[in-house]
């Protein structure tokens, strides 16, 4: 059986978040199993399933070239902005 990654949106306005993975015969079955395994305590209102093999992932060896160059560019961070309370879920 194929491996699928499961993404769940917990409520309207939020993003789908990766919650786990599961095995299934086809995408439809993966969706049903995702419902049974990851939403039985009302965790979600929308499910995405994706073939794990379709995900292109960065590698440990990419770290140096990918992320280290950002270390000395603090002016890119929004760390000093005050977020109004009305803005939820950022």
């Amino acid at each position, binding site marked *: 059986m194929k491996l699928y990654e499961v993404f769940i949106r917990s409520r309207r306005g939020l993003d789908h978040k990766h919650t786990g993975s*599961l*095995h*299934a015969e086809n995408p439809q079955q993966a969706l*049903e*199993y995702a419902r*049974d*395994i990851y939403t039985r305590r009302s965790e979600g209102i929308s499910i995405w399933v994706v073939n794990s093999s379709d995900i292109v992932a960065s590698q440990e060896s990419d770290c140096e070239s990918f992320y280290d160059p950002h270390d000395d560019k603090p002016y890119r961070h929004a760390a000093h902005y005050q977020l109004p309370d009305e803005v939820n879920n950022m």
Partner: protein
Amino acid sequence: MIDKQQLKEFVLRLGDDSLVLGHRLSQWSSNGPFLEEDLALTNVALDYVGRARMFYGYTAEIAADGSTEDSYAYNRDCRDFTNLLIHELPRGDFAFTMARQYLVDEFNLAYMERLKLSRDKTLAAIAEKAYKEDLYHLRRSTSWILRLGDGTTESHDRLQNAIDDLWGYTTELFEMDELDQEMSKANVGVDVASLQPEWIRQVTATLSKATLTVPADDWVVTGGRKGIHTEALGHMLSDMQFLQRAYPGQQW
């Protein structure tokens, strides 16, 4: 006009159907063919046990004699159970479990759709919830019928054998005894006999699509509503009721 005793007996039947099938399904818990299916099947089992609790709870409320949902589940013997026989048959192999589930799901969905219109508000509310669950159950069991029936030679043969072994128990789903007729006339229960043609049509369509043969109607077993059961129910109850029998009144 239906009286309290009739309503109680009617609701108790529905509770017995749900509990016995729920318990049979729960026997797959931790023994499923693979983890994902194990969890999915256990979810369905829980839906039925939950349904049994609602029906038994309502039965106790009507009886108003100090009985509780537990007394109906644990303190009655075989002959007091009035479930349809198809629910009590041992779980068998996975093909048998899914074959029974599919045949029963097709029936239950149509049944609950009608029961939602019951004049009895409590039954209508339970049916409202059960109908939604059954929509999902049927979606699952139908896809298993197609997958196994149109799968390998072995999965096809196992499923065909299961359908053959179950077929004679399906007639009972549509039997109307005096109580059923009274309840249906009072718009509290469901005219199950009227559901049969559509059920046959749906089941035939699915089985054909799954390359399976609809068995001939050459044998029929009934008796569940009268408390006449197969030998399987007693064994199931001795297991299910063990704790309450050995330690009466024991609680979690």
